[in-house]
């Protein structure tokens, strides 16, 4: 009897505390859901969606941030961007960063992950070593790399000298600077890439390899016909995430050449850095907003194309 009373108690309590029997339970739960979502929804609408709308709106206006006047200028900002050789350069550079950096970090990451699969002893330690740059603060790492790259006193040229090779200008050369930046970004992302690929490799069932091995398939064919197709989801994920990151490259570029940001001769300039300079150094908010609209469009287009053409459903 006492037990029954104890069990009934919560039920009675809920009836008293709740909105009463007239409101169905389903509605009550929906009300709770809306209550939980109220503040977060307000946040995402006002701090993410609405500012994006404002940026689109600003891109067809002219504004220098101090004045009240924001005259409507139609597509003038976009025409100006199209006519600006620096913006074209920034776009081309950004695409070049992506086209060089993403495949490089994927290939290196996959190779290292496959090597790590071969070893048992010290595997955790080696994996951690490759991961350290990923958790290192970007700005500090960029300054260390700038010091490594220094033409006369840098360690990289010191190593080249030891190997009997001529010194290179690296960040001071318009031809080499972009690749020098890519090298640092790859160094930073490599650990992430290795960890993602290790997880992907471990999810491939061993039996496929054993079966194919019994059929006499060599290592290359195992890689080509089992590893690569079954890693497809991991590869697509890495390509999309990596591309979005390279398309927004900023902190590394600024800090690798702090006194001539985007230099030498705009050879390392990215779209993000261009936007920053136009908006917060030249205070041309309308034009900067137009550039962000272009960046947004490029990011959307590239991500959708990649998802469309890279994703394959593989079944064995």
């Amino acid at each position, binding site marked *: 009897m006492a037990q029954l009373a104890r069990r009934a108690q919560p039920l009675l309590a809920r009836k008293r505390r709740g909105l009463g029997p007239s409101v169905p339970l389903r509605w009550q*739960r929906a009300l709770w859901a809306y209550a939980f979502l109220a503040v977060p929804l307000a946040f995402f609408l006002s701090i993410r969606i609405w500012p994006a709308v404002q940026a689109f709106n600003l891109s067809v206006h002219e504004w220098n941030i101090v004045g009240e006047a924001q005259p409507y200028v139609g597509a003038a900002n976009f025409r100006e961007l199209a006519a600006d050789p620096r913006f074209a350069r920034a776009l081309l550079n950004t695409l070049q960063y992506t086209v060089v950096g993403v495949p490089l970090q994927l290939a290196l990451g996959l190779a290292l992950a496959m*090597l790590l699969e071969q070893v048992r002893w010290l595997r955790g330690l080696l994996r951690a070593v*490759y991961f350290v*740059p990923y958790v290192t603060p970007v700005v500090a790492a960029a*300054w260390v790399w700038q010091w490594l790259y220094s033409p006369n006193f840098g360690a990289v040229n010191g190593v080249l000298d030891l190997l009997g090779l001529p010194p290179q200008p690296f960040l001071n050369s318009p031809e080499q600077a972009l690749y020098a930046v890519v090298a640092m970004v790859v160094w930073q992302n490599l650990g992430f890439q290795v960890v993602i690929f290790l997880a992907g490799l471990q999810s491939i069932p061993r039996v496929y390899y054993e079966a194919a091995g019994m059929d006499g398939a060599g290592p290359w064919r195992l890689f080509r016909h089992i590893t690569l197709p079954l890693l497809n989801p991991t590869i697509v994920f890495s390509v999309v995430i990596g591309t979005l990151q390279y398309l*927004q490259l900023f902190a590394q570029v600024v800090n690798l050449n*702090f006194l001539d940001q985007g230099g030498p001769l705009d050879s390392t300039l990215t779209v993000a850095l261009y936007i920053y300079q136009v908006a917060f150094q030249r205070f041309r908010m309308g034009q900067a907003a137009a550039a962000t609209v272009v960046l947004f469009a490029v990011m959307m287009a590239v991500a959708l194309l990649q998802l469309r053409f890279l994703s394959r459903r593989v079944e064995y």
Partner: protein
Amino acid sequence: MRVRRRLVCAAAYAVLTLGGVVVLFPFFWMLITSFKPFDEIFALSFWPSRPTLDNYLQVLTATRFPRWYLNSLVVATATTASVLFFDSLVGYTLAKLRFPGRDLVFVLILSTLMIPTEMLVIPWFVTSSERGWVDTYWGIAFPGLMSAFGVFLMRQFFETLPDDLLDAGRIDGVSEFGLFRRIALPLVRPAMSALAILTFLGNWNAFLWPLIIIQSDAMRTLPVGMALFSGEAGSAWNLIMAASGLAIVPVIVVFGIFQRQIIEGVVLTGVKG
């Protein structure tokens, strides 16, 4: 066959070790330069002949490095706490409660992932100037208080919890918030720690928005302070490397302690996300 396997294994160790040395070399070079006196930094020696702590002392006393540390700590801790609370609550609501408009809310939040930060910083700055948020902790932190990525991650995890568990709680008279707080939340602890670590690191390293919103020396976060200090220090590379060391070493120590959780967290985001 056995011999071949051994050879592959040895080759793997050789390549991995060599790669590891290359990857760690920048840290090694930073540390030895930071212990060199100024007149020695341009010599390509692999060891300081007269090791000194002066560089560190100078960075700590002549700049506001300790203050920048504190600023970064305040901002990163506050945003992490906020993200943990709100993202898990939203993830739970989207995964476990049925209500009209649920899919719309999810798509709306997820779609914000595609908006580049560069697009948002201009309106954020305009709003901040109008409301006096420039150069305040709130101004630095407010854009990061919730993250769509975190919502997505938490929703994935809450979906794996059986509904019966929550219904049992409901029958026992646990309130809807209690179900989330006392039953669901303790079961997704691995996801929470992954989200916490990734959010903290992301905010600790944030550069673009802090660079825009911070104006005074005293309000700089570590990355902004570090960048501007290094720009001003010119060729005093021993000081810049000591500053880098101060920024990097604590992060590596934390990584050393939480290594497993951090790497597992990244795996979870990669596989589940």
